[in-house]
């Protein structure tokens, strides 16, 4: 568990509205539907004052096209639960980091065939990531930018399968 995630976890545990955080676990990343916005670290905070609910989110990458969908999914999920007064704020600082992804999120990514972030170096390694399919470390980077900006494309030299790597950032 990263220190950043530990702090997110503590914010969630100390929240007076745990049921709202639980509800928002239903909102998934549209491009990585195995991850909730909580797992991904896009969900920063949830607060309730009287009838009003304020949800704070942050984009992963500057150009992340998923943000619009995430906003409308938050509105839908909270709307269905009867929340009528809702404000969704976008926060830019501190900048999102791959260290915010939950440990469960990393496991889910691996099961989905995506190597989770290493959280060790700033940039993508040229080789040596564990293949999420066969576990071999005999792998190489094919492209620094995979199917989306947050991923790089790797290939396993043992099982020959290509796979995505969720980059450290």
């Amino acid at each position, binding site marked *: 568990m990263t220190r950043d995630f530990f702090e997110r976890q503590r914010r969630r545990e100390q929240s007076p509205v745990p049921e709202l955080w639980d509800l928002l676990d239903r909102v998934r990343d549209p491009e990585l539907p195995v991850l909730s916005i909580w797992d991904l670290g896009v969900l920063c905070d949830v607060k309730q004052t009287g009838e009003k609910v304020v949800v704070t989110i942050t*984009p992963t*990458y*500057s*150009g992340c096209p998923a943000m619009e969908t995430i906003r409308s999914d938050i509105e839908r999920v909270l709307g269905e639960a009867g929340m009528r007064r809702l404000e969704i704020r976008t926060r830019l600082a501190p*900048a999102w980091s791959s260290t915010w992804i939950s440990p469960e999120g990393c496991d889910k990514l691996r099961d989905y065939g995506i190597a989770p972030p290493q959280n060790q170096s700033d940039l993508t390694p040229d080789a040596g990531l564990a293949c999420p399919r066969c576990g071999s470390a005999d792998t190489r980077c094919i492209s*620094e930018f995979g*199917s989306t*900006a947050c991923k790089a*494309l790797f290939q396993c030299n043992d099982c020959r399968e290509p796979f995505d790597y969720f*980059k450290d950032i």
Partner: protein
Amino acid sequence: MSDEDLKQATLDYTLRLGDDALVLGQRISEWVSNGPFLEEDIAYGNVALDYIGRARMYYGYAAELAADGRSEDDFAYLRSEREFRNYLINELPRGDFAYSQVRQLLVDQFNTAFLDRLVESRDATLAAIAAKGIKETRYHLRRSREWVLRLGDGTAESRRRAQKGLDDLWGYTHELFEPDALEQRLAKAGIGVDTAALKSQWQQAVAATLGEATLNLPQEDWAVRGGRTGYHTEYLGHLLGELQSIYRSYPGCRW
């Protein structure tokens, strides 16, 4: 400078940064479906998306500062060529792949130095946008650097093209380091970046990569300027025509 002057100057400055990001993002998005191979095609599309996302953050902040009903879309789609204040290097046509990667190296290296300073801006929003951007730009720089090494130190043909790209682009890099009165004022106020102070660092880093790529540093015998005053090359108008036509044909349309 009064608070009101400072706010107006910050708005103008933010628009310049938004224009740089939008124009380059739009330009390099032209590589989508034209890349040399599939992975590269996708990679360049992702870099373009980072730039367009960055433009949205700058324009969104500009809209907040202007507080006159204009939206981020209005800044992107309803200003004319002469109102854009991007550096000329960002608007030049994409050329061949070597030309585009050399441009990318020059610009990525500049953005690395620039955003690294903007992170310390007294303006919290500009600092936040920079903090996000710098992480992405480090990835962009690593990619463009590797391409320039591969093309420069590659075949005779790839080297010839990379060198030609470099020679054709070099004269457009001077204006990056020539802050005008507005930029100097904002740098003094701790909001903007004094780009003149970035030049030697930039030159060293670029020269190191070019040396490794066996490319020759161009002669310093010509320079084109004008982006920050709204005097553009003939290419920007065409780029904006394509970028803005839908929004202008269907005023108020949303997507």
